Structure formats: structure tokens, C-alpha cells
């Protein structure tokens, strides 16, 4: 864990960028700031960023997919990880955080997350919440970690199975991570 310190300049620039985006869309301004904060938090939790020579932060693109045990692909997307190594816990955190924040900001009809929100029903297109509301990412994250420890969800890095939350994964270009849900996970 590395402590995050913000310069007033960086914060006011971030606010300025949000105002600019909000001229067109408030929703996207919010989504943008959430992404920036999420990236900073992942960076802090994964032991600090790696810098490129020009001072920009190096991020690695990771492909994440959800699948059933029968091998059916349920969804695939990419996340930017601000490090080359990440623990399994941080990987779960990045994933859950991002999908919950995206849902909370955009409020689409379905939530296609790892964990079913408590008052949601499962449909073909994902979880549908009975009432539109904000999902609690921390509860979802706790649930997902518990499920991983109980082998209710398996995480494959390439074709190797991750064994513990503290295990470090090396992310190279093209690394694919698969989440296999063995039982229904509920929380948040």
C-alpha cells in the first residue's frame, strides 16, 4: 500500500477536465472522474505505479472474461492496470470496483457483474435490480474475495489457476484472465 498525495494543481486540473466534459454530458464527466480515482486507488494498493521514461504512468491492458464451467463465454472486456504485477485480491478489486462504478453512474437496465446484487433477479442479459439504486462495491468485493477463498469462483490466468488472494500475477501484453463462477454469488 502506497500513500496517495494529490497536488492542488492536479486536483484543479481534474476538476477542469470534468467541467469541460460536463458541457456535453454530466454522466460522462462523473464516469471519467470515477475512472481516474479508481486508477489512482489501484495504483496505491498495488504498491505504486511504474513510470515510463517520459514520466507518464505505464499501464498494462488485461483481458478479462467471464465463463461458465462448461466453457461458454459470458462476456469479455479489458481493464487498464497501472502495474505489471498485481495480486489476485487487487485484480478482483479492480474488476468489481470498475463494474459497480460503471453501473452506478450509467444506471443501465442490467448489471453484468461478478456478484448478484441482493435484490436483483437473474435474466439472460445480466442482473436486473427490482428498484434502481446504487450498488455497494465494497460489499460486492468482500463477497467476491470470500467466494474465491471458498472455491466458489475460480480465476484462471492464461490456463493456470490462481490459488490465493495474495498470489501475484504477472501481466504481459495479451494476458487473459477468466473468472469461472461455480455457484451464484449474492451481495451488495
Amino acid at each position, binding site marked *: 500500500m502506497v*500513500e*496517495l*498525495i*494529490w*497536488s*492542488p*494543481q*492536479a*486536483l484543479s*486540473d*481534474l*476538476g477542469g477536465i*470534468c467541467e469541460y466534459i460536463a458541457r456535453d454530458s454530466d454522466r460522462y*464527466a*462523473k464516469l471519467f*472522474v*470515477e475512472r481516474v*480515482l479508481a486508477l*489512482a*486507488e489501484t495504483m*496505491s494498493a498495488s504498491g505504486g505505479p511504474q513510470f515510463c*521514461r*517520459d*514520466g507518464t504512468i505505464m499501464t498494462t491492458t488485461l483481458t478479462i472474461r467471464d465463463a461458465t464451467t462448461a466453457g461458454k463465454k459470458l462476456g469479455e472486456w479489458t481493464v487498464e492496470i497501472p502495474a505489471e504485477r498485481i495480486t489476485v485480491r487487487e485484480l478482483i478489486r479492480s474488476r468489481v470496483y470498475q463494474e459497480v462504478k460503471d453501473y*452506478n*453512474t450509467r444506471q443501465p437496465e442490467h448489471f453484468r457483474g461478478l456478484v448478484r446484487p441482493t435484490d436483483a433477479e437473474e435474466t439472460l442479459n445480466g442482473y436486473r435490480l427490482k428498484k434502481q439504486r*446504487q450498488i455497494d462495491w465494497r460489499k460486492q468485493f468482500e463477497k467476491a474475495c470470500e467466494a474465491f477463498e471458498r472455491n466458489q469462483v475460480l480465476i484462471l490466468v492464461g490456463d493456470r489457476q490462481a490459488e490465493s488472494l495474495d498470489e501475484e500475477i504477472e501481466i504481459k501484453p495479451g494476458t487473459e484472465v477468466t473468472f469461472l463462477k461455480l455457484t451464484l454469488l449474492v451481495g451488495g
Partner: protein
Amino acid sequence: MTTKDAVIEMIRRLPDDATVADIMAELYFRQKVDKGLRQLDAGEGLDHDEARRRLAPWLS
């Protein structure tokens, strides 16, 4: 290193096909970063919770 030298070095490091707009964007970015770093050196840094509070209008 003088400011002039730093700017020349910065331009040298840009790709060969950099445009005037690229150079101006990079210069502007540097200026902001340097200002931020000076604020941090002067002990004006803010912790993450404070950053979240200041960005509260943008957080749902």
C-alpha cells in the same frame, strides 16, 4: 539545467513526426506537472480522502 535546455531536451525526446500542436501540448503538460511537484515540495499535498471530498460534486 536551464529552462531553455530542459525544453530543448523535451522536444528532442518527442517522436520525429511530432507536430507544433504536440509540442505545445507536451509543454503545457510539463508546466502543470512541474507546478504540482513544486506544490508537493512545499508541503501543500492533499491526502486521498481530501481529494475525494474536493471532487465530491463529480462523484455520485
